[in-house]
């Protein structure tokens, strides 16, 4: 249960830190990085982005809603300032990236491609497509296939497509990514959600739900997608324990990503790893 393999490379564990909770890899310098096979950077765009106003985070009964709005330093600053710092760490680096047009995706991907020290690219397709009235790229199989094809043309590294659960059939989207040439799909991204303050009678946040609440949703998606596609599936959603990891592997995942759990326990990956050793 402890060993894993992705894209022909043996990994020391199936444990990957998810995009968004691990910064650019240089913030968690005080935890045991040993058991972490790889980490995904914060989503990178062609140009730096400021993201959304406060509040960006809200706790719910069994998880959190975030609305960070993809604040990031942009691909170029990442390569200049962060990549040299994190290249020496004992984890593989997966650069998560996104765009608002196909051209932006392709340009960001081509800048990241060919850079030494990057293990794979993870493409976030949950963003609004400005040329299609803001409907997210990831909601339409035809768009996903076209986008994946266009990006795949310019990258020489494994391409993981990260899927949104906010669709009618996630398997159809996964099949489209596979048809476009994706080397892997990771799922699920956050689930659309909102919190309301009864005192003000207004919504306090509208964003993406993560944490324990979404684990059963993610398991079902991973189970279905694993049976639909041949490429490796990376499971994400409410993973806190070794048992959670095993459930995802049984559902069909070849590796998993840990997200929200790091907020309650920075050493969650090390604790899960120990748990997997005992199983």
């Amino acid at each position: 249960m402890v060993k894993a393999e992705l894209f022909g490379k043996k990994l020391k564990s199936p444990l990957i830190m998810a995009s968004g909770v691990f910064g650019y890899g240089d913030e968690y310098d005080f935890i045991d990085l040993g058991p972490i096979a790889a980490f995904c950077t914060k989503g990178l765009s062609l140009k730096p982005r400021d993201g959304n106003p406060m509040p960006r985070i809200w706790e719910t009964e069994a998880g959190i809603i975030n609305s960070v709005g993809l604040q990031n330093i942009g691909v170029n600053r990442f390569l200049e300032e962060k990549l040299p710092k994190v290249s020496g760490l004992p984890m593989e680096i997966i650069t998560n990236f996104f765009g608002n047009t196909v051209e932006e995706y392709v340009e960001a991907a081509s800048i990241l491609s060919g850079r030494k020290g990057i293990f794979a690219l993870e493409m976030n397709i949950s963003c609004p497509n400005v040329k299609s009235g803001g409907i997210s790229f990831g909601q339409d199989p035809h768009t996903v296939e076209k986008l994946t094809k266009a990006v795949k043309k310019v990258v020489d590294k494994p391409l993981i497509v990260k899927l949104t659960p906010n669709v009618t059939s996630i398997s159809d989207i996964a099949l489209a990514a596979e048809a476009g040439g994706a080397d892997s799909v990771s799922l699920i991204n956050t689930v659309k959600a909102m919190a309301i303050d009864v005192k003000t009678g207004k919504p306090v946040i509208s964003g993406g739900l993560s944490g324990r609440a979404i684990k059963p949703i993610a398991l079902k998606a991973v189970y279905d997608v694993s049976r639909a596609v041949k490429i490796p599936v990376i499971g994400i959603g409410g993973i806190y324990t070794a048992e959670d990891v095993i459930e995802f592997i049984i559902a069909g995942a070849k590796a998993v990503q840990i997200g929200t759990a790091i907020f309650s326990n920075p050493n969650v990956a090390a604790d899960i790893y120990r748990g997997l050793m005992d199983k």
Partner: protein
Amino acid sequence: MKMKHGNPISNFKATISAKTFLNAGTVSMFLKVPDVSFAPGQFIMLEAPGHTLKRPFVICSVKEGRLRIVFSIRGKGTKTLSELDTGTELDAIAPLGNSFPMPAKDKTVFLIGGGLGTVTMLPLAGQIKAAGIITIIGAKNGDELILADEFKKYGEVLISTDDGSCGKKGSSIDVFNEAVKKFKKNECVVYACGPNPMLRCLAGTIKKTGMECHVSMEERMACGVGACVCCVVKTEKGLKRSCKDGPVFNIGEIIW
């Protein structure tokens, strides 16, 4: 240069050793911790059992392995914490964030605390070596006024309340504007923490007088270590993370 004290210690156990209510909604809590050193302004992320996120609290003091926090019951997490018994073990990360630059010894120091922000001034009062310390505490009313007696050990304490039920009626910044009149701008250093409208008002005064002033910005946090960028503050140098680049900022940097 802002001081940085050591690397945070990840997920140690903090054990509640004492808990007292300062008023109906405010708790002073002591936690037994391993060897944690800190500088005024730094904070601890503390588990609230049953909740997804840890909660940030300013470290008031660490003495003989006992770390003190003071918090108000604001939501479900702080309510849970306020109900815990002594002996309860909580996961914690500390010390986190930057700290207040210390003043030169010949300065007079103003500590301005609005509401719960008063707590953030406490470690400064305990560690500052200065010509004098004048603390100004603002509260909604006399019942919600906290820590006034503790600050009296360190110097003069001036009080303001919104309803005039204790001290002067009005805002803590009105009281500060009056008290600071007898000083020249380079004779004093100002430290403050409180609600944004109060700090924004203070920023106006400081801009006019050109005094040195440092504020602690409190935003809702998730990771506490700079990774998730949930707690950003708008500054002249772009968005800064209150947990990692702050929580202490020069007041002139903040865009209100």
